[in-house]
């Protein structure tokens, strides 16, 4: 089992880690950095609960090896609020009651953030398309779509 030394910038902080080859980015975040906001729902790239941004692109972190993140920038749900101040997207999720059990929420927020970065004014249809990989069993998605739309009107992802 090969061990690799990697450097990953996570939520703006540089992390130096040694990881075995088979460790996933999800395991690295949750078990090594205790960033447990990113959730493990299936470990098969199917539910989206573990979505994070890698160099700005949404990725199922259970499907990426930690070594592949070497030298790259990772953003997790913990990186969305700044000094306790929620991002407009997070504010909108609170205001629209787009959260129920909250287990899918981190992944949904990250996918929505990625969408607004590449398309600051998405239609409802585009929001639904962008979130198709994030399963939610509680909300029925309606309020999530409304929250993303409201955040877009407020001025986007930041």
């Amino acid at each position, binding site marked *: 089992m090969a061990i690799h030394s990697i450097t990953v910038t996570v939520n703006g902080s540089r992390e130096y880690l040694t990881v075995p080859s088979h460790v996933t980015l999800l395991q690295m975040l*949750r078990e090594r950095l*205790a*960033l*447990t*906001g*990113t*959730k*493990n*729902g*299936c*470990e*098969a790239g*199917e*539910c989206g*609960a573990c979505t994070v941004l890698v160099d700005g692109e949404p990725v199922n972190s259970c499907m990426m090896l930690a070594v592949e993140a070497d030298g790259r920038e990772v953003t*997790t*749900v*913990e990186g*969305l*609020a700044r000094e*306790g*101040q*929620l991002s407009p997207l*997070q*504010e909108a*999720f*609170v*205001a629209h*009651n787009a*959260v*129920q*059990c*909250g*287990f*899918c*929420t*981190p992944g949904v*927020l990250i996918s929505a953030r990625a969408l607004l970065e590449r398309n600051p004014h998405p239609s*409802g249809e585009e*929001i*639904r*398309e962008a*979130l*198709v*990989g*994030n*399963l*939610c*069993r*509680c*909300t*029925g*998605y*309606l*309020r*999530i*779509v409304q929250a993303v739309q409201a955040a877009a009107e407020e001025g986007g992802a930041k």
Partner: protein
Amino acid sequence: MTNEGLPSALTSDPVGKGVPRIDAYEKVTGAAVFADDMQFGPGLYYGRLVRSSYAHALIKRIDASKALEMPGVKAVVTGRDVNTRIGLYLIDRPIFPTDRVRVVGEPVAGVVATSEEIADEAARLVEVEYEELPAVFDPVEAAQPDAPLLHPDLGKYEVANFIFPQPGTNISEHFKLRKGDVESAWPKCTAIVEGTFRLPRIQHVPIEPHVAVSLWEPSGNVTLWTCSQSPFAQRDLIAQSLDIPHGNLRVVSPYVGGGFGGKAGVSTEVYAVVLARAVKGHPVKLRMTREEEFFGTTTRQSLVAHTKIGCDADGNLLAMETAYYFGGGAYNDYGVNIARAAGYSCTGPYDIPNVKGDSYCVYTNEPIGSAMRGFGMPEIHWGIEQIMDQLAEKIRMDPAEFRRRNCVRTGDTILTGMTMPAIDLVACIDKVTEAIRWGTKEEASAPHKKRGKGVAIMWKAPAMPPNPGSSAIVRFNEDATLNVEVGAQDLGQGAFTVVAQMAAQVLGVPYEWVRVSVPVDTKYSPYEWQTVASRITWSTGNAVKAAAEDARRQILEIVADHWDEEPEDLDIKGGKVISYKSEQEQTLKDMVIYGLPNENFEGWKGGPIVGQGRFMPTYVTNLDFETGQGTRAVVHYTVGAQAVDLEIDTETGQVEVLKIASAYDVGKAINPDLVMAQIEGGAVHGMSSAFEVLRFDEAGRPLNSSFVDYRIATSVDAPKEIHGDFVETPLEDGPWGARGVGEHVMVQTAPAMANAIYDALGIRFSALPLSAEKIFLALEERERAGG
């Protein structure tokens, strides 16, 4: 919103207002802790279950020697180490069986190792030798006298006094309902519709898989950390099963990532405890994979319903005869009460004078059937609500009108002999038919598509023992913020928000001053039976209201004494005690902990304010075994209506639900926004459930245990329009009149869809799922037949 926990706006008198969720900030920042997020340090071990590969077989031999030789393996536990059973209503489930397995995936042993990978590898090395037995999967077949018998010891199992198993058969519960005389009523019917309706097994599919961590300390104190709807019921059942004093077993449940009934009762949690017992002093984590989640936790039972209903020429329902066969799976420790609930509510929300109902829970060699959102009601309404449409068609009456005429009303003597508490189902029907533009034919979006509308109504009572209790504690902090402690759980439905609103309302403080103590911890939280049955807003709500009233009484007595006034003349507003008589004011923060000084500081009065409250329904009565008749079968019913507008692609058979309109009588919406969130989410859950099916091969092996093969509704599947509404007919013993609505919101969605599909295509589907393939083949078939 809150920054650093400091609210910027304050909400007074919050009951009835759509305040933001109390847990929203934590949940959008990733700070909310779920069971898998808890940290246990380097001493943590990992468990893995060895599962049966046969649906029904005798266990001849279990050999763990190879597994035990593997480096990193700490223990292997089998039925020889824990030869005991567990169950809520019927104690039929061995933790690890020693004689036989009854379902593919049944745990026969558990492995503890220093890593998940090693545990996984070692579990494969445990050798189990089986002798296969004939298996049975269909509940009707399994109920026959010559079916392979799953539980020869059924007569020896301990059972609740309202459950009636039939030893020597696979029937674990038979509920009988007899009202009037159906035989003499049939000749008076102008229209009679009879049919067999089937629902397959489906799964709850919470996005958070089951995770349990347990530590068995050498002292004998045991802790179980898990995502649980039922920390207290789990403590009770596990303590009884493993003979642990209740006070030594502590169950801690942080936030639950979706439950839907799948995290109620005991499913896999007990395994973490028995594995931890084998490695005392080390916490052991047992995490279900997504694959295991589908077949190795619990499922919704299958149902075969034979139902016959008749009405007269004016559309008055006269008689109903029904037999429900629930496919209970290998163990029915919880499922028996689903069959019972389906029995005492077997007519659905209708006033029918003559009823003969039989509801059976039947052992089958399938995954364990247990509670799932709606608890028997989605299952029985699937057939009932289609037959109502068929009857209406036969006598040429509008199906909505047919329902208005026959639906249950306040004061009716319902099928069990109980008087129906106040509800307004007609208002719900009116609201959804208006919202869906009932009676207006809509244009399909393309020539190869067909569009239709359907309506369905429902009822459901909290299905539980007669006397499940709730309790609550309200205690103030120095600055007059306060903590509400409950043993009820927030599964996403918003329980913590609602109890905070209630406490704030009673105590005259802003909502933002209230904290709810999390996680739920049986060592510190007051007792709660289970977070199930849509009972929390009502039952826990009553307890919280009582606790807040207790605290309020203490406050007013102290201040009245201080001012030499009567408590009746005082009130609390905006965090201050005020006197309507003397117009004096006293801020809470200056008295809720330290009390108030007597004149010239000649001593003090008062002290830390702690209010306590409890609630338990005391009025539910037994039902007669032969007739199901009794004074009060249940605490109350919640009723509602849904209407669906959909279209079907005739080239693919694909159904697209365009709009769902729902309305429920919630008594009082403590938080209208959360009620609407339940209604919307439930409608999509209900829609999704109509397409879901757990598939098995002929040997009972699961075929679709992944999100790819078992599809749940995604963001693009959800209807573009979800219309929610509610009616508020106060419940006599509800807090502010409130009753629950969490489960009801998905009960009748599938039959409403089936009725809409019939409206569009003129074809009826009596078996779920409503798969594109099934619909396409039915269209082909009709074309071949020249229809």
